[in-house]
């Protein structure tokens, strides 16, 4: 094998290793989403199609009760869209890191990006644990592992919906995996300020229609973190950070 390919493979493997320990979170959350779709009234083929095409747990779970109560189509799609608005922020944050990739690759990076894989990427970029080259291969390793785990577990949940013990609160594993990912970042003042403001706004705005609260909380948190940072971070560019 030529050295360039070997290096890409090494980056891919490093990505797979980076997400390995967190997979129980993806597995539990995928399983619960599969069960929820079937118990929410979707027949297994429709549920499987939703899981494969939408691949966004929170938007799927937000849409289910609206589907079950026969809400107008535009209300269901609008709710999903607004639940997904945070991905626009993620997409903007990832843009500098993948600006030199082909259009097809950027589309794939977007499609497979989730709360978890995005946060893992950003955390690794800030900790300097990303490989210097072939970040796309590293991210592909992370995302393919996450996607496969999620889909296999979602399909299991769809097929075996009546056998999965939902009363155990398995989905909480997904929340804990997010805690494990983000907890260690809460050591700087701007990060803590951002997290606190985002949490307070999210709690206050919980009743907002179409799940707008999450997006508002993210924006408020980022603004607070930036203020706490005193714009000091402007000295460092994400375009140059981490490049060799």
């Amino acid at each position, binding site marked *: 094998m030529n050295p360039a390919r070997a290096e890409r493979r090494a980056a891919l493997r490093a990505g797979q290793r980076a997400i390995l*320990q*967190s997979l*129980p979170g993806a597995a539990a959350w995928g399983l619960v989403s599969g069960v929820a779709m079937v118990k929410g009234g979707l027949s297994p083929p429709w549920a499987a*199609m939703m899981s494969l*095409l*939408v*691949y*966004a747990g*929170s938007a799927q779970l937000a*849409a289910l009760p609206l*589907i*079950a*109560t*026969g809400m107008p*189509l535009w209300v*269901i*799609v609008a709710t*999903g*869209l607004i639940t*997904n608005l945070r*991905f*626009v*922020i*993620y*997409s*903007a944050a*990832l*843009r500098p890191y993948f600006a030199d990739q082909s259009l097809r690759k*950027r589309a794939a*990076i977007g499609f497979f990006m989730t709360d978890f894989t995005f946060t893992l990427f*950003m*955390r690794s970029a*800030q900790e300097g644990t990303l490989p210097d080259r072939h970040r796309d291969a590293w991210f592909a390793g992370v995302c393919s592992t996450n996607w496969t785990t999620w889909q296999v577990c979602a399909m299991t949940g769809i097929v075996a919906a009546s056998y999965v013990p939902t009363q155990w*609160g398995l989905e*909480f594993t997904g*929340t*804990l995996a997010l*805690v494990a990912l*983000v*907890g260690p*970042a809460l050591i700087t003042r701007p990060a803590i300020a*951002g*997290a606190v403001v*985002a*949490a307070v706004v*999210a*709690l206050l705005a919980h009743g907002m229609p179409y799940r707008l*609260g999450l997006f508002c*909380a993210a924006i*408020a*948190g980022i*603004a607070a*973190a*930036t203020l706490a*940072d005193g714009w000091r*971070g*402007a000295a460092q*560019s*994400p*375009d140059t950070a981490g490049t060799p």
Partner: protein
Amino acid sequence: MNDPVSGIALAIVIVGLALSTFVTRTSFLLAGARLRLGHRIEVALRYAPVCTLSAIIVPDVLMHGSQALDVSPLNPRLIGVAAAALWLCFSRNILGCLASGMLAYSLARVLL
């Protein structure tokens, strides 16, 4: 109550949701250099993960499945997160964090 959405309508909903996910996730990635936020904003977006996850995690823990805030120390999810956070103070092992959090959460649900 209306009938559940089904058939063609359900297909439209699924395609609509899929488009909403794809369009939001790829927005800035696909726009490339044509649609760039200012430099300062791209720096600020480094705080996006910690803020968004906080906005996802905290309501899930403190108001799970209801509109009411549950900040009592007997809230099983709060106990689970506390155990996971305590684990993270001493170890970066994520499996251990998940296990300790789930154990504390499950024990709290059974015992309290």
